[in-house]
């Protein structure tokens, strides 16, 4: 019995643009005039349309996630193309958008020498709440993010996890219709990460707030998101509903605590082609159901015959992460390219050939993002 109104209930606030999209972009391009290394293209003709809900935005460091978020907030002007948030244009109606959106930046943004309560209250005031409402909502937001007794302590004494919660609380305090969260689990320990993800999921489901979560930890995106946008080197890699991404794959992973080699041999003898991957043996399932069932049985029997301690048997889930590894991506495309099509909500899905093997290639481009670096160094030298 949540009292949360869905965005559409409020007539004055269009919850979404045409077609129920909370975020739309068309041909969105952002180039930075790099000081030392020419022009850097952070976003390259991005076209997408994202429905309400919890939306994952994945990409390697430097793929353009932060740039996209800043453009959506109207903090950066696109070089070309257009985008709309909740039906408002990011250039002409940025002010309007910012009254409806809560933003949690990736970087540290908290002053160490004030208490969480003071800070969130202040940010509530900055979001347009009257003093009393700001105090109440700050307390509420901090409660929702799980900071209670500690909220009167100085932020400087907080752990990373607590700071992340404060960052989330300040984004939540103004009762936004959409939250843009940039790497919300960065630097969190497992418990903190879990709590943060639960919270985001809950905000999305119970509070009726749409959430765009940028992350490079793909596991967590899989866990909480309804749909997903994957970008690489400023280009759209893929946009689809979550189920299309993480469907179980046609590969079975078997782990035994000992006798892995014996099992491998036994499976080979049974006509399968096991492949080692770390502790696991990977076995391809058949194309038909009967064929697959035979594989299941063969594994069961091999394990039972050898009396091995079976630790794990599962269909390898497609990890979104694999989108970014060339080889795995190809496999992914082969297996799911067709299946994903139906669920796809995006217009364009450029080929992945832009992904190269150099692990740092794309990253370098954004670290030179003039918005995030340089200013401090330039000031100080």
């Amino acid at each position, binding site marked *: 019995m949540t009292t949360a109104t869905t965005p559409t209930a409020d007539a004055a606030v269009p919850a979404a643009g045409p077609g129920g999209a909370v975020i739309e972009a068309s041909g969105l391009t952002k180039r930075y005039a790099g000081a030392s*290394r020419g022009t850097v293209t952070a976003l390259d003709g991005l076209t997408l349309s994202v429905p309400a809900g919890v939306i994952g935005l994945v990409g390697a460091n430097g793929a353009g996630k932060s740039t996209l978020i800043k453009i959506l907030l109207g903090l950066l002007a696109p070089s070309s193309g257009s985008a709309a948030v909740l039906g408002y244009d990011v250039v002409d109606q940025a002010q309007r958008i910012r009254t409806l959106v809560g933003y949690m930046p990736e970087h540290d943004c908290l002053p160490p020498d004030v208490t969480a309560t003071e800070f969130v209250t202040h940010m509530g005031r900055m979001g347009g709440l009257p003093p009393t409402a700001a105090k109440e909502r700050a307390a509420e937001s901090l409660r929702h993010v799980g900071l209670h007794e500690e909220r009167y302590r100085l932020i400087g004494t907080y*752990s990373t*996890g607590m700071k992340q919660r404060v960052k989330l609380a300040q984004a939540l305090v103004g009762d936004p219709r959409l939250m843009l969260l940039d790497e919300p689990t960065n630097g969190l320990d*497992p418990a903190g990460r879990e709590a943060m993800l639960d919270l985001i999921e809950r905000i999305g489901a119970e509070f009726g707030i749409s959430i765009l979560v940028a992350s*490079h930890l793909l*596991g967590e995106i899989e866990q909480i998101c309804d749909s997903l946008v994957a970008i690489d080197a400023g280009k759209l890699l893929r946009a689809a509903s979550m189920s299309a991404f993480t469907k179980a794959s046609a590969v079975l992973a078997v782990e035994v605590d000992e006798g892995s080699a014996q099992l491998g041999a036994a499976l080979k003898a049974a006509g399968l082609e096991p492949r080692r991957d770390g502790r696991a043996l990977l076995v391809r399932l058949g194309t038909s159901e009967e064929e697959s069932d035979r594989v299941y049985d063969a594994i069961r029997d091999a394990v039972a015959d050898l009396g091995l301690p079976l630790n794990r048997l599962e269909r390898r889930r497609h990890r979104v992460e694999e989108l970014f590894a060339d080889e795995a991506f190809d496999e992914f495309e082969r297996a799911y390219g067709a299946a994903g099509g139906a669920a796809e909500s995006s217009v364009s899905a450029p080929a992945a050939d832009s992904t190269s093997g150099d692990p740092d290639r794309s990253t370098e481009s954004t670290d030179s993002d003039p918005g995030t670096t340089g200013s401090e160094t330039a000031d100080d030298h």
Partner: protein
Amino acid sequence: MTIDNIPAQRDAAAAAAANGGPAEIVLDNVTHWYGNVVAVNDITMTIGPGVTGLLGPNGAGKSTLLHLVSGFLSPSRGTVTVAGQRTWHNPDIYKVIGLVPERDSVYAFLTGRQFVTATAKLHKLPDVGAATARALAMVEMDTEAADRRIDTYSKGMRQRIKVAAALVHEPRVLLLDEPFNGMDPRQRMHMMDLLHRLGDSGHTIVFSSHILEEVERLSGTVQVIVSGRLAASGDYRTIRRLMTTRPHVFQVASSDDRALGAALIGRPSVNGVELTPGGGLEVRAGDYGTFSRELAAVAREQGVRLRAVLPADESLESVFTYLVAS
């Protein structure tokens, strides 16, 4: 990349042997407090060659522990030694130790090569040029990037250049504070690979982290710090097995969950079976070893096809959660 590609590494291992064998990190009843806050509480541990992960929730005392080992904090009580020498007030210890600090604080106005070269000079190495080249090669930064200013580097490159600087004097011990923080999976895999190679070549590698996937993949031993205390050490799977008071939980999916469940509940190794609403079984096994050996056979007996067996709580993450909770 295999070890053979880097002859220098074998040299390092050989050098390590020549310098008196592998360097051990020994903490003996170490306590450290800031004001009234006890950050590290009576920790005794020995860390030998190989890759060791220092795990713990945020604020558990991992950084404090690393700083104690690296000689940037004094133990309030107890002793910290590396290769037999105390670390506090002993700059000579840095002949043995290489340190990669957490903060992104490098001399951003230098090029990567200049930074590593300067570090080599500070260590008074006989052949600075060769040492620099070797260190850069080790982290695969012997590219044109080495001659760019560090402030143009990505997060991953910064970390790697810091590792190169920390390795330039061929230390036997390498300490890394949160080396994976802020890295994306690609960058992380790269760094893990590097640490692996170093660990395999006889170095003592200690890194702190709170992202457990990394540690799982690095498959080294872990030292788990919770609230300033050493909660567990060793292989994390072994640690889990040691927690006998907690039944192991498995998610099982099969062609006939009811039949399988009924058969399993009769087994002494199984404490409880529950049908999960969405399909599948949740099995709580009191005796892990027996259960895992029985399961396939029981399924076969019942003519049930096993579709999935998932240890629900065996990830390092749940081990960790248990340790933190207890």
